[in-house]
């Protein structure tokens, strides 16, 4: 099982802060994770289509090709904006 963390406006879409989920066998990378969540609904697909959407694995930013696995804390991050 992995812990999915929803940040910012993605939390509004998820309707919750966190979710414990079994990653399907085909979800092996951060990019796979985004595709998988995108397939949940049109709303998710739209929200994750922005090129600045990122994934953090155990609170470290990862690239789309980086591995994700059961046991990870996987955060879905909408476009960041400080300042």
């Amino acid at each position, binding site marked *: 099982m992995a812990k999915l963390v929803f*940040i910012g*406006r993605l939390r509004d879409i998820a309707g919750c802060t966190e979710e414990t989920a079994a990653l399907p066998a085909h979800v092996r990378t951060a990019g796979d994770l985004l595709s998988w969540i995108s397939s949940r609904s049109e709303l998710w697909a739209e929200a994750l289509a922005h090129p600045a959407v990122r994934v953090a694995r155990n609170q*470290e930013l990862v690239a789309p090709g980086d591995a994700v696995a059961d046991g990870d804390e996987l*955060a879905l991050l*909408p476009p*960041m*904006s*400080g300042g």
Partner: protein
Amino acid sequence: MSVVIQTEPFDPASALAAFTARQNGEPGAIVTFSGHVRGEGGLTALELESYDGLTEREIARMETEARTGWPLLDVMIIHRYGPMAPGEAIVFVAAAAKHRRSAFEAADFLMDGLKTRAPFWKKEITETGARWIEPRAEDYVDASRWATAAPKQETSP
């Protein structure tokens, strides 16, 4: 060097006083940037969300990039999160260098990075509701200026 992420309000002038006081008289140039909540469009509050350790770590990484790219004598970054009122300071960046070009460019670089790469998420709260806001297209364009050329090193004292 210091990076502080906090929910408490802070005063940019006091931050500049502290930054100046901790210099040893070496820097000829100190550039600061203060970002404030703008009260336009009926905004009643701005709320910034952070994500645990990621936020502080990514900002510390930008600070290291700035010190690698320019010959800086000191850097200070203060960033608030949580709810803020119009007029209040969100962010303060100070860069000290022997000469002004390095201080200007490093402060500019840090702000472009904070606007587009700092793990914060912003919600505008108005009388009629709330909405998440994201970097403007210009913010991404500004940030891309630094990717194309390595920052300059000073060529003379």
